[in-house]
């Protein structure tokens, strides 16, 4: 444990979680040889070829009350999948997730009921979260205010821009005052005014909440907001440690990959995986920027 204070109670236990998606593919060559012939024949008559994709491979860790855990990793590394598994909306293939309370997921991807107005969606969402109709009447104005999408609240959700939809979902989830909060890039959406309001709301939730998980491509956000970070790569847990250390190691690696310096990237990756994350040589008090090259 990296936290300096005495460790809190365990709030989330992720135990050997694996997720495998069955997905369509057009690449028959990637299949095991035994299946290739059949798949080719199937494709010829218009059947879809399926393949298994391991989105998470045996992830285990423990989160404690008071921890803010950032999840970093490239696109498709399994960050959002892990968040959905913790939220309980995506069942793992193996393993289990235990939590002290029902985690609430702030996702941007979930479309609710497109034909209903924003207001009806708020009501429906709050009911789904287990609120009583009387409570909903009470907290409804606050939720609508936090969403701050004006008259659009009376229009069907299918007419919303993606930013507006995200704001509405954020406001609904925030209303639940969850003690375990899962944030999936929600901060990145919305205009400046909303970003400000949502930041305040998240600070408020952080003050009250036990545990927060935050997925972000921006390692900078993780460094600022989290106490601990987990780096995922192709469904595997690479390193789990203090936010600054892990986020910087990830950024360094991503930076090397972007520069196509694959040898150095592999080296940094291997070191991180061995639990010896490489902090870039030039990083001082100011975090590494995209323009800085390796020493």
């Amino acid at each position, binding site marked *: 444990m990296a936290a300096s204070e005495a460790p809190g*109670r365990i709030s989330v*236990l992720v135990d050997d979680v694996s997720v495998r998606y069955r997905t369509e593919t057009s690449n028959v060559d990637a299949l095991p040889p035994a299946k290739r012939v059949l798949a080719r024949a199937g494709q010829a008559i218009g059947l879809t070829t399926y393949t298994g994709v391991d989105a998470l491979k045996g992830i285990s860790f423990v989160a404690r009350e008071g921890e803010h855990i950032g999840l970093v990793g490239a696109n498709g590394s399994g960050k959002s999948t892990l968040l959905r598994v913790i939220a309980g909306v995506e069942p*793992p293939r193996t393993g289990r997730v235990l939590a002290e309370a029902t985690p609430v997921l702030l996702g941007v991807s979930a479309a609710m009921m497109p034909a209903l107005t924003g207001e009806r969606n708020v009501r429906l969402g709050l*009911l789904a979260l287990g609120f009583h109709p009387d409570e909903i009447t009470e907290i409804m104005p606050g939720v609508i205010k936090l969403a701050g999408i004006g008259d659009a609240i009376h229009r069907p959700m299918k007419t919303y821009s993606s930013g507006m939809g995200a704001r509405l979902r954020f406001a609904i989830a925030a209303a639940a005052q969850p003690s375990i909060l899962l944030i999936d890039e929600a901060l990145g959406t919305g205009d400046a005014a909303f970003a400000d309001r949502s930041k305040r709301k998240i600070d408020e939730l952080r003050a009250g909440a036990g545990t927060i998980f935050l997925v972000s491509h921006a390692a900078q956000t993780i460094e600022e907001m989290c106490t601990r970070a987990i780096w995922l790569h192709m469904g595997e847990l690479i390193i789990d440690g203090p936010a600054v250390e892990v986020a910087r190691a990830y950024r360094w690696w991503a930076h090397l990959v972007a520069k196509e310096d694959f040898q150095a990237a592999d080296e940094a990756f291997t070191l991180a995986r061995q639990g010896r994350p490489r902090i870039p040589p030039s990083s001082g008090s100011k975090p590494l920027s995209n323009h800085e090259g390796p020493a």
Partner: protein
Amino acid sequence: MPRRAHPDSTDHLSPVSGRPPFREYLSQLVERRHFIGMQAWSQSTTQHRGMLLGNVWLVLAPALDGLIYFMIFGLILRAGGAIENFFGYLVIGVFLFTYTSRTINSSATSIHNNRGLIRAFTFPRAVLPVAATLRETFAMLPVLVTLIVLLVAVPPHALPTAAWVLLPVVFLVHAVFNQGIGFLLARIATALPDARQLIPYLLRLWFYGSAVMFAVDRFDSVPWIGQLVRINPMYQLLTIYRSLLLDATIPPIGQWVTVTLWALGALVVGALFFWRAEVSYGRE
């Protein structure tokens, strides 16, 4: 914090997903009754949106069905045989079979159509097929009123009798039966999307096999089919409706017991069957 002494204790944790024991599952379902109600209501208000006649279609669709079947089977083929009020016989069959077929279709698609909700929130997934059945049951109320009006208005007029009081009872049994079948189909159609293509054909077979638009003795040319039709719970439900509404006779107790057992059996088997796959509904 009293637990500080044992920071690694996991006794206070519980699984975030997975299948709770059946009894607990049912009580979770009851807790979400308001969610079920709103889900049912919101779907019924959006269904016919954008159409000129809106929810009038709820009544118009089965009425047109009944009219067409009456033209073909009543006036042209004279399929009524010895049935005294064949118009009544037919509309009761068509209207009330429609209730079952609509419920089956709604339940079968309820998981797929609400995957947005499933991906966003944790709740017992049985909420969705229950809401589907509830919605179809509400939608059926104006249809029942239309049915009564037609029975009274169209010759030979079936006039209200004391037996009509039992109409809500058989409707309730019918609703329970539909819920059970709805649970079964909700799981099957989710596990195997192709089932959604197959359901219309099975429903049509069931429709013809329930003696909706001709007398049951037409099936007796092949004795075992005749037997099968008489065992068919839909035929038995329709028979009760018809004897209450057309013959003013209260069916014997044995008939009531049979349909009630069918309904409860379908509900228990359906609910257990649906619950057993609870964790699979979130997968894509």
